[in-house]
């Protein structure tokens, strides 16, 4: 029974470059940051922290408008009252089979709730934010999506934020 990974991680950056080259597209320009990332030290125990969740796997709740596949930069608020059974997945760029089987694999809210019950974290924010990753315009993310999510997480008074991309 394999207990460790024997192959190196898949280099998706290079795969996308190769794929674009094969299709005759201009090279895809991945976001690349050479500077030191921003840093905020956690100044209280995790067991007292309210955790905010942000997920880009195209999660929406039954009753909400789904994501469309042409540069959709809209967000959905998933209220804590929405049960896992009412979560749906709409995404153009990954195999959504397991996410539809169990939304926790891309939206681990219930996992966080359980850890709150165990006292590992303080609580889970009432609002989670979702969108559909694979937004090709990094400018749109920088100027619209990131500031909106930041503003809302501050308003929600979360102590830490968990980002779950796909």
């Amino acid at each position, binding site marked *: 029974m394999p207990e460790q*990974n*024997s192959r190196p991680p898949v280099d998706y950056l290079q795969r996308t470059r190769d794929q674009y080259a094969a299709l005759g597209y201009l090279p895809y320009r991945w976001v690349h940051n050479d500077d030191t990332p921003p840093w905020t030290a*956690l100044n209280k125990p995790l067991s007292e922290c309210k955790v905010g969740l*942000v997920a880009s796997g195209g999660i929406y709740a039954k009753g909400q408008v789904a994501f469309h596949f*042409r540069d959709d930069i809209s967000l959905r608020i998933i209220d804590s009252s929405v049960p896992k059974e009412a979560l749906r997945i709409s995404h153009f760029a990954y*195999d959504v089979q397991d996410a*539809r*089987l169990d939304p926790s694999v891309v939206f681990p809210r219930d996992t966080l709730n359980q850890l709150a019950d165990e006292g590992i974290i303080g609580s889970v924010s009432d609002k989670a934010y979702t969108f559909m990753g694979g937004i090709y315009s990094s400018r749109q993310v920088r100027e619209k999506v*990131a500031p909106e999510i930041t503003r809302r997480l501050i308003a929600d008074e979360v102590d830490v934020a968990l980002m779950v991309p*796909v």
Partner: protein
Amino acid sequence: MIARAVEAAGIPTLSMTSALSITRSANVPRAAFLDYPLGRTAGPPNQTEVQLDIMRRSLALFNTFQTPGLVETLPHVWSATEGDAWKEKLSLPKKDSGEAPADDERTEREDQPQYQNPEDKILAEQGRCGNCIWLE
């Protein structure tokens, strides 16, 4: 990019990821790398204990990491029987072939909402989607 913005605004962030090269390129403040096929960033489906273990180890990085830009590789293996053999099945495109690889999961780019279930569409069209945020 979003993690960096949130962190810069004074909220510590942790990014989970299954795409190490992309996360390193974006250079986020803190990350936990799960070496799984894309689309299962927070663990295997319907395996609550494994999902909890992944989350406990990930959240612990808020305490263990003291400098920005670190990525912890989690020890989990996708398949108990085949390990990470899934990586062998990812096909690479032939150079200058003009063809996408056979396992390209990307679908056509549609302008209309793509519902998982047809009844979701009916429900959504009855409501006003109060919890939708339009940024266009």
